[in-house]
């Protein structure tokens, strides 16, 4: 047996595909798959949001928000008791109301209010301090009640969850985990879509009309915010981020009131 020095081909154990071509093809495929999953999941959350009975929702989420704070305590911010009473009165105007609403007052200077699944509305001390009439506060609370009526909060949470899952599955596999949580939270916290906001506004106007007989003071709160002293506007950044204030929204409010034959003038009740 003799040795014959010969070199074998060296291109056999490597695939001929160009890495950039492979990478772009894979990215496109991943994006398409992710998109399909997201669409499917959005559809699923729509179905759930529509069909989940509020009773079940209240049971599922009700206790979660106990961590936020007690319903009524000695160190409640001023006007909190008033706000609770107001909420109860407003909810009474919604006859088919399936929730047992409760208000949680957060001890923060930041102006904010949000709806949490299960029938809890959270408002901050800053918000309670800055409203100048009961009508303004009623509009804010009524707006959140409107979101409950349309089950918007369920959709938002569902979408946030689904987006997070999909992004993690697609991007996480490719070692880009940093992008996932921020994007998911950004998109989820973008707030509700414009038409959802408009519907919530309409609901709030109806409640105002039922309680006071007119809708004056509804947009007074929003009007004040951008022009107010810097302190107020600063503290309202969180609120503004999810509830964009614009002339068009204020005009839309007037429009809604006019179309529903609601009077835009009347006495404002002081707090």
């Amino acid at each position, binding site marked *: *047996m*003799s*040795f014959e*020095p*010969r*070199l074998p081909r*060296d291109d056999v*154990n*490597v*695939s001929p*595909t160009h*890495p*950039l071509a*492979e*990478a772009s093809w*894979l*990215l496109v*495929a*991943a994006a398409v*798959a992710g998109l399909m999953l997201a669409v499917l999941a959005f559809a699923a959350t729509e179905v759930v949001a529509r069909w989940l009975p509020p009773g079940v929702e209240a049971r599922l989420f009700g206790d979660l928000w106990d961590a936020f704070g007690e319903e009524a305590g000695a160190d409640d911010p001023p006007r909190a008791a008033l706000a609770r009473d107001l909420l109860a009165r407003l909810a009474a105007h919604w006859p088919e109301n399936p929730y047992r609403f409760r208000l949680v007052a957060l001890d923060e200077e930041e102006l904010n209010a949000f709806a949490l699944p299960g029938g809890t509305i959270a408002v901050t001390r800053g918000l309670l301090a800055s409203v100048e009439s009961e009508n303004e506060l009623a509009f804010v609370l009524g707006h959140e009640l409107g979101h409950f009526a349309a089950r918007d909060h369920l959709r938002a949470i569902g979408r946030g969850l689904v987006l997070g899952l999909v992004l993690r*599955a*697609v991007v996480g*596999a*490719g*070692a*880009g985990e*940093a*992008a996932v949580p*921020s*994007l998911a939270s*950004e*998109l989820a916290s*973008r707030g509700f879509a414009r038409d959802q906001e408009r519907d919530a506004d309409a609901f709030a106007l109806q409640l105002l009309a039922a309680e006071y007989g007119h809708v004056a003071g509804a947009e007074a709160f929003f009007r004040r915010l951008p022009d107010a002293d810097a302190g107020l506007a600063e503290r309202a950044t969180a609120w503004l981020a999810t509830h964009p204030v614009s002339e068009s929204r204020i005009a839309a409010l007037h429009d809604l009131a006019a179309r529903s034959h609601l009077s835009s003038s009347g006495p404002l009740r002081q707090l």
Partner: protein
Amino acid sequence: MEGWLAFALQVGPVVVLLVSTYFIGSAVEARHFRGLRMRELRSRNFPIATLREVPEGWKVEECGLVSGSCVISLDYFKRFVAGLRLLFGGRIASYETLLDRARREALLRMKESAHAAGYRAVIGVRLETSQIAAATRQGGTAGVEVLAWGTALKLRAP
């Protein structure tokens, strides 16, 4: 608007890393392949075989165990592409080049160390591949090690 800015800030570094490591990685790899080919040409007269017995007609004076090993790591671009590939299945081209390089390097090092020690051939060559896991990420790979070993022979002139 700010949402997209935040997103861009998160994704931007990833994209920059991907692009830069693609170019750096392919340059490093191309250079390594050229070097490997050159060394293989230079050392082609040194016989290696997986045969367990000494080829007939060879007179062995001395023998010894020789080995060569190499650990090569993936660059960020390859790891990213491999991660995507793991979703869909199929051949992972980036790992194939990695292993080809590591294997040829290990064999060359075995040859070269045998030659430097005065041996004339290596028989009974065996190869072993293992994953070197990174401590930082669960299941992450720091690199791949290929080990080549065999029995090197010193021959008596026939």
